[in-house]
């Protein structure tokens, strides 16, 4: 009985955890670009969508071409054929996921590099506006040009890489565990990267680019790398979302997503990866708890569209944080290198001597 109930809510839990991982990856990568390097990348969702289009388009086209004798990727019949192919062939199912991840990272990084071009020439507000519109242009092209992701209808039949295990819930569970592990790896990598002289370089460029340049720092290079790396990590989030939802829908990648992610970063603490973990968790939970699906689960009937309540709460949270704790729940900390340890020892030794 209990097992049955657990089984019934499995998709809900895996969705929560997978979306948390996706949001966490987005928030961590935005934190690198905005929190550490100071580039207001308000078009961050675009780089996630690049990963999503790569995953969907590449998987559907190559599967169709290599194994299914061609055919329109948007047709329901070919979507069904791709699912069946992945059901029967574990290697193909997982191979396409890995391939999408690799190509998504490269293409995401490439677009990040392109976007770093205005990032070097425009100042804060103008840059933010430009990047929002770069993202919107990408979405509008994708929803109108069927060859990218089947336009408004969306591209379906992108099989879960673990679909072949048989039980749909089990494949969701395995996928979710993998998503959490990928998010954890990205966290560890970014934590190491930002607690290094490179992290300090990004922060110095953020705080004063003239001073950084006068100390011989290559501003263009630092910003460029932050954009390239942050964008390729955002693309990973796009790939993860597509293979979980088993489809790509251009209208998922609206600017609102960027601002939800931004609110995670602001709430948790800019330029602090641990804070971002917390911020992403709180906003994801809010998203989950204040949703029709959750109220249906606990058996409460709601007579109005609760989605808007969620936006109101998110807005209040952001305004409250900015008013009373602008540094976020866990504020920025000095870059934790071996240097800081030595410094603490130096100071301690001196205090003991005196």
């Amino acid at each position, binding site marked *: 009985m209990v097992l049955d109930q657990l089984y019934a809510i499995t998709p809900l839990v895996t969705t929560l955890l997978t979306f948390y991982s996706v949001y966490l990856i987005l928030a961590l990568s935005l934190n690198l670009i905005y929190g550490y390097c100071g580039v207001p990348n308000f078009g961050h969702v675009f780089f996630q969508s690049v990963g999503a289009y790569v995953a969907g388009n590449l998987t559907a086209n190559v599967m169709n071409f290599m194994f299914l004798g061609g055919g329109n990727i948007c047709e329901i019949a070919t979507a069904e054929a791709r699912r069946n192919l992945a059901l029967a062939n574990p290697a193909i199912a997982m191979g396409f996921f890995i391939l999408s991840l690799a190509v998504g990272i490269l293409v995401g990084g490439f677009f990040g590099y392109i976007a770093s071009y205005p990032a070097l020439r425009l100042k804060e507000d103008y840059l933010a506006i430009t990047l929002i519109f770069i993202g919107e242009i990408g979405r509008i092209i994708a929803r109108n040009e069927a060859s990218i992701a089947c336009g408004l209808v969306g591209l379906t039949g992108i099989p879960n890489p673990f679909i072949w295990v048989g039980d749909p819930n089990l494949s969701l569970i395995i996928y979710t565990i993998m998503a959490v592990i990928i998010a954890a790896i990205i966290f560890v990598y970014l934590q*190491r990267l930002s607690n290094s002289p490179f992290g*300090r370089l990004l922060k110095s460029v953020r705080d004063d680019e003239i001073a*950084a340049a006068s*100390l011989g720092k290559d501003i263009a290079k630092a910003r460029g790398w932050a954009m390239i*790396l942050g964008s390729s990590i955002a693309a990973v989030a796009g790939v993860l979302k597509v293979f979980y939802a088993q489809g790509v829908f251009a209208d998922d990648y609206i600017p609102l997503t960027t601002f939800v992610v931004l609110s995670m970063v602001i709430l948790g603490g800019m330029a602090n990866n641990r804070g971002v973990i917390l911020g992403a968790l709180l906003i994801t939970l809010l998203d989950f708890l204040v949703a029709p699906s959750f109220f249906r689960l606990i058996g409460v009937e709601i007579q109005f569209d609760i989605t808007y309540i969620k936006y109101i709460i998110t807005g209040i949270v952001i305004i409250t944080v900015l008013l009373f704790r602008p540094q976020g729940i866990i504020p920025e900390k000095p870059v934790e290198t*071996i*240097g800081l340890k*030595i410094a603490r020892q130096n100071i301690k030794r001196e205090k003991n001597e005196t």
Partner: protein
Amino acid sequence: MRTPILKVGDVTKTFGGLVALDKVRLDIQERLITMLIGPNGSGKTTLINVVTGFYKPDNGRVFFRGIDITGKPPHEVYRLGLVRTFQIPLPFQRLTVLENLLAAYRGNPGESILKAPLKMAWREAEEEAVDKAFEIMEHLKLTHLWNSRAYALSGGQMKLLEIGRALMSGATMIMMDEPIAGINPALAHEIFEHMQNLRDKIGVTFLVIEHRLEIALKYTDYVYALANGKLVAEGRPEAVMADSRVIESYLGEAM
């Protein structure tokens, strides 16, 4: 006379019809605090801009340690160890004093994105940088503030931090544009004492523009006086201040 560390030879710089610098010649000796004085508009800052590569002179040549740096871009001049500070301090606001200094350290391999996650690749450089940073903070009496954010410092401490960053980046000569403007007298004296200290202990050469002569002169080894883009006097501080052309340039000609 020893060979000068910085040699400015007959530098001329015009902006349209205005002659900002007219065949100015300086020989800055190593390990001295040299001051550049003159009324507003006499060409002091222009001269620093020409020397550090922010402006290109129309005529004349600039040599630093015997190397011709005429018209070289600022970052190349910087690499040779000739660093300038600005009139308004530009610290990295949200970084601590220690981090500000570490960020200025030259050639830390950990600033490469590929090597950054591998601690072994930059551990040694980072350790050296920290030792150097503490040495510099010791000289500037900033040690107790090592973990304070730069935005929390006073104006005077920020100026010291700027000197510290210049030293951290390996500067052997620092050109300072009005280091004590807007600083209270007690701290202003302190800043010049620090400069003397650095001159004596580390052998740093300073070229300083300053208007508050009553404070600055007693710390100065040598003075150049500019008026209307021309060098009007040079020598020991007392001699230059007694020079009638210097007095005239500040107060106007005698009736």
